[in-house]
């Protein structure tokens, strides 16, 4: 079937072939001892750490820097355990030729998976070094002290790592004991990030900044809308334009390569104007999108059931909440540099997963994996699955047409907004019974959502854009949903509150009228919005203070602690009420029900005449277990709150039947500097608890806090996001 489309049904002709797949790590052999974190799937010790002849260490991670500061945090963990100063630990990340395969850098899992692997691997490497030193010095291991890569005996004799030549080419055992938190010297400190000095002085940091010798510039011409087929384009005219080296057409994939960037852009525009397309199917009516989503075939799973009977005096309530499609909105459009030389393809990419990307390139380029190398280089922040992988495939297809010349391809702004996979639109339906004692007796919750993961390394077909438009097109991979407890569309759908009776249903909607995938938090942002809004609605019905109402339903002491801490920090007053234009609200979640605990209080100001909502101030309390880097954690939490306020007040990917309307920052506005809320954060360090992922912990609590503050301020509830002026004015009547 030649017509490319985003709905798999259009390729398969029906839903019978659909299989829900969950990502298991590669090479998981039965019978092997389970190793912690990413050691499980990358079991060689020297795959993680090598001691160099000068006594320094090179540390390898499959996780990549996305601007979250992860390489600094992982280096802290490694340096702490191997007992070297940070300056003597070199990090290598995300390279199919050099590093462990840790899948995607996503889901706030890098500290938990890569950090755990590095902690165990470096502790084991240190133990091996100490054993070697003990033999050389003729002293028992427990007599030796280690500091800064030097092992010392009680009599003063010393031996450095550089002299020990340890053999780390062996299977990890994870039997060495990591250091107790009380002895940490590097972990737990606000170490300044390694990457920032170059970023603020114009260093060569980003894949966008690469300019290898002989580099050419590529651009791609996208169709007017999904699933369109290219009939013709004036390729000869484009080829005659100044600087144009090649026009590349493969089916409905059309691109151009030129000597200079502005020449490639001009040729792209000429090709765009001359291209004739047979248009793909119309998009749904945006006014009916939530009905459409609820009507599409879904795989339904009932999760989080507790059986109980509501008391006879219970009052019942219900509410429906919605969340629109949202864009990742990277400031820098996606970019890649690719070089095809001597039959081998090298792709420099800001993909979140170089190994999964390579697996897709194998299919799109029809080349063996061994001939493709994907190397991570930072890009603009992505916040999930944006155009990073797609542009890498585009660049590789163009590079293949000009062997020996590297091709740099950066998507244009309209292309990034129009073609990236969005965070899915979602519908949440909540019902509850409130007992005469003012407590929730029964909780019923249903969520409808498309897939939150159509990422690369699909089990069937491909998940990079270009692959669907080639003369021999690949079909789109099957939609997937991470299983509970982390969940996808149902992430955080199960309340952490202790209700005597509950039922939660996830309607995993298969067919995708609009291209979607992972946006930071997956379904958690929408589910926490709905769940925590409904908690406030029930608190109001019960005549209870929202903080007290939450605590009355919550046993988990760490959850209670963050709620109590944020209430104290914000100076929350029992039963505080807004004044018609100003109010405050609270939101809480334990991210994925298994990562960090975050509670947020937001203050909103509502301009009743214009319908504009602003959020001048927020407060947050965070428990991420053992804190690796307090300032790094603070940065992630405050960034998440500001981003969430932007999503909540402004963001919605607009479309009509003819296509996507979000094409620039005017048609997809985000929060600006004057509008950004101030953030005050309290960190609760728990050195004896394991470190918990935190990059996505604050978005859900923040949207709930803002929605609840709006209701607190005005007495009216907005259940549809975003809280834009039209919606606000309509709610205020």
């Amino acid at each position, binding site marked *: 079937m030649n017509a490319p489309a985003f709905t798999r049904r259009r390729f398969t002709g029906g839903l019978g072939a659909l299989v829900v797949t969950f990502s298991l790590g590669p090479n998981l052999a039965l019978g092997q001892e389970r190793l912690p974190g990413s050691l499980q799937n990358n079991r060689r010790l020297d795959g993680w750490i090598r001691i160099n002849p000068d006594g320094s260490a090179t540390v390898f991670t499959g996780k990549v820097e*996305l*601007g*979250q*500061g992860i390489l600094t945090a992982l280096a802290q963990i490694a340096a702490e355990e191997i007992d070297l100063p940070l300056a003597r630990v070199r990090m290598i990340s995300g390279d199919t030729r050099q590093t462990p395969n840790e899948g995607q850098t996503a889901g706030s899992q890098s500290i938990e998976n890569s950090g755990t692997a590095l902690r165990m691997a470096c502790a084991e490497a240190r133990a091996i070094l100490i054993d070697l030193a003990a033999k050389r010095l003729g002293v028992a291991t427990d007599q030796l002290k280690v500091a800064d890569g030097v092992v010392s005996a009680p009599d003063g004799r010393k031996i450095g790592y550089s002299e020990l030549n340890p053999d780390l080419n062996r299977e990890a055992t994870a039997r060495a004991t990591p250091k107790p938190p009380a002895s940490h010297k590097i972990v737990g400190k606000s170490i*300044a*990030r390694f*990457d*920032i*000095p*170059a*970023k*603020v*002085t*114009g*260093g*060569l*940091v*980003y894949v*966008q*900044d690469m*300019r290898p010798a002989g580099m050419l*510039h590529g651009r791609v011409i996208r169709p007017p809308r999904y699933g369109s087929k290219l009939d013709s384009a004036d390729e000869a005219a484009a080829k005659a334009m*100044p600087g144009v080296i090649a026009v590349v057409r493969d089916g409905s994939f059309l691109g151009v390569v030129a000597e*200079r*960037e*502005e020449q490639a852009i001009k040729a792209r525009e000429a090709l765009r104007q001359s291209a004739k397309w047979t248009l793909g199917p119309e998009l749904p009516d945006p006014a009916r999108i939530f009905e459409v989503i609820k009507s599409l075939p879904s795989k339904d799973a009932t999760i989080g059931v507790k059986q109980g009977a509501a008391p006879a005096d219970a009052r019942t309530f219900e509410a429906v909440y919605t969340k629109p499609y949202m864009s990742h*909105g*990277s*400031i*820098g*459009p996606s970019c890649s540099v690719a070089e095809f030389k001597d039959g081998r393809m090298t792709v420099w990419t800001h993909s979140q997963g170089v190994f999964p990307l390579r697996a897709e390139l194998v299919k799109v380029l029809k080349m063996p994996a061994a001939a493709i190398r994907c190397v991570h280089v*930072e*890009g*603009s*922040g992505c*916040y999930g699955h944006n155009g990073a992988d797609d542009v890498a495939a585009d660049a590789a297809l163009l590079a293949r047409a000009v062997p020996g010349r590297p091709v740099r391809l*950066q998507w*244009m*702004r309209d292309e990034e907004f129009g073609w990236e996979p969005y965070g899915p639109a979602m519908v949440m339906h909540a019902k509850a019974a409130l007992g005469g004692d003012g407590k929730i007796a029964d909780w019923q919750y249903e969520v409808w959502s498309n897939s939150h993961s159509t990422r690369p390394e699909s089990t069937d077909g491909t998940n990079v854009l270009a692959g669907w438009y080639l003369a021999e097109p690949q079909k789109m991979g099957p939609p997937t949903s991470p299983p509970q407890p982390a969940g996808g569309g149902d992430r955080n759908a199960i309340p952490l509150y202790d209700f005597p009776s509950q039922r939660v249903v996830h309607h995993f909607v298969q067919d995708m009228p609009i291209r979607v995938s992972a946006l930071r938090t997956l379904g958690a942002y929408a589910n926490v919005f709905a769940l925590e809004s409904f908690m406030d609605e029930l608190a109001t019905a019960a005549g209870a203070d929202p903080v007290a109402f939450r605590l009355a339903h919550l046993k988990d002491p760490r959850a209670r602690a963050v709620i109590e801490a944020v209430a104290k920090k914000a100076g929350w007053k029992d039963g505080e009420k807004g004044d018609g234009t100003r109010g405050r609200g609270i939101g809480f979640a334990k991210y994925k029900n298994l990562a960090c605990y975050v509670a947020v209080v937001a203050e909103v100001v509502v301009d009743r005449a214009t319908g504009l909502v602003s959020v001048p101030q927020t407060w947050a309390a965070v428990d991420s277990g053992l804190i690796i880097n307090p*300032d790094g954690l603070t*940065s992630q939490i*405050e*960034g*998440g*709150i*500001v*981003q969430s306020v*932007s999503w909540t007040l402004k963001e919605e990917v607009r479309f009509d039947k003819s296509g996507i309307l979000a094409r*620039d*920052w*005017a048609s997809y506005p*985000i*929060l*600006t*500097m*004057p509008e*950004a809320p*101030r*953030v005050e954060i309290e960190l609760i360090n728990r050195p004896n608890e394991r470190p918990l992922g935190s990059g996505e912990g604050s978005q859900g609590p923040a949207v709930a806090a803002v929605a609840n503050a709006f209701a607190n301020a005005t007495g009216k509830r907005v259940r549809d996001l975003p809280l834009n002026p039209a919606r606000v004015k309509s709610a205020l009547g």
Partner: protein
Amino acid sequence: MAINLKVNGVPRSVTAEPDTPLLYVLRNDLELNGAKYGCGLSQCGACTVLVDGRAVRSCVTPISALETSEITTLEGLGSIDKPHVLQQAFIEEQAAQCGYCTSGMIMSAKELLDRNPRPNEPDVRAALAGNLCRCGTHNRIIRAVLRAAQASGRT
């Protein structure tokens, strides 16, 4: 055709069409990484540079209009070994996550501090209103600019 530009105090000659946006010449011909492509529409501020002291969007400024101008990019302020007071303040406040918007933020802040050496927080927010940040680093960026203003005031 050859166009003469003065960038970071140094005369440079480049061969490009006169309508070429300054951004591509800075990045590709002069190999300066500071100014970034974000939108090409003068909407996001990632490409901001100073032209005769004014913050302009290099993505929509043709080189032909600049032959008599002094152009300053992020690299013209300071270096990794000798950072400008603004760059130093951004490091001290750890005022970057992905950092893609940072160069434009610093250049807009430079224009502000040159015009108003002692801005308050609302001044900083207003001066950076046309520079978009997506990571949510806004508060740190504001703090960094205020810190730079204070540091400049002391010297």
